[in-house]
């Protein structure tokens, strides 16, 4: 039986898509640099923590949405991944609040 090699067609690079990926990467690096600036210019406090959390979620959104392609997937999959993360947020809030009530020895 003759083994037939599959015909491989190499397509040219999608320059627009590649350009967009590099733009996302630059944006991520930019946000990290902003975080650095804030880390050394702002006083420690709830506002600083809040800014860091927001910037982290922005970065996470770009990684999951663009790099992991979730933004372009079917809505069912998109929500199936996102909705369970509510539990994580709730757990974080509950445990940090609980931690503040513990009196250290």
């Amino acid at each position, binding site marked *: 039986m003759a083994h037939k*090699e*599959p015909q*491989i*067609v*190499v*397509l*040219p*690079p*999608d320059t627009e*898509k*590649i350009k967009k*990926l*590099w733009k*996302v*990467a630059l944006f*991520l*690096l930019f946000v*990290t640099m902003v*975080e*650095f600036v804030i*880390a*050394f210019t702002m006083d*420690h406090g709830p506002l*600083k*923590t809040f800014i*860091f*959390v927001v*910037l*982290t979620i922005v*970065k*996470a959104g770009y*990684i*999951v949405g663009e*790099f*992991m392609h979730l933004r372009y*997937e*079917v809505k*069912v*999959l998109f929500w*199936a*991944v996102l909705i*369970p*993360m509510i*539990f*994580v947020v709730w*757990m*974080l809030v509950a*445990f*940090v*609040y*609980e*931690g*503040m009530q*513990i009196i*250290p020895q």
Partner: protein
Amino acid sequence: MDHSTAAITPGKSVWDGGASPMGISYGKLMMWFFLMSDAFTFSGLLITYGLVRSSNPAFEGSVESFQFATTHWPIPEKVFDAVPFLHGVELPLVFVGIMTFVLIMSSVTMVLAVEAGHRMDRLAVEKWMLWTIVGGLTFLGCQAWEWTHFIIGTEGGTVMSGYIDGKMTAYTVTGANLVQNQYGPPAFADFFFFITGFHGFHVFSGVLLNFLIFYNTVSGVYDRRGHYEMVEKVGLYWHFVDLVWVFVFTFFYLV
């Protein structure tokens, strides 16, 4: 690329069988589910860190007057302020910044490998996979240095006091391990080892998987198969590792 197994017949629900309701292949869907469970594991670790940290008193006073003590939680920028080859120079968080940069860059090269896979461009996949592996190994090397520095500690260590044989005694602690920690409460070192260690283990497995994919690409497995979907699946895992680092970076090093 179309991954659905069959066209949907009008009037029939996508959930009636014969179609992929999620619009992706079985393998990719299972990778997503695995990553979800992994996200919960990492959340467990980071949330426990949040609990213990918020139960310990924070340092009161200016950052300049900060000193290591078990009575308050350390300020991370005062703990992680060393960079290889620059001994004695105080460069807070610079090395962690470099590590973050390395990991984000290796994430980009991974996406470019996936993009090349869509086009069946074997040479481009090889090139970008190799860069991704280099990035992963660089990150692991950085982490090894970071751990070594953390374990060995600073010159002179920190004088701490505690009960030894029922008597309050002053003693010097140099470096950190699971029971003693010169930088602050022992729990801080425990979390450092567990969280960055668990993440580092993921990076290590990721490098192994990336190498496997690179090997299969070079030997033409995916050309024969007719698609490069394995690159996408491992790509999902690699981005997840990057994603976790984004959270570790914020909650362990910045906040």
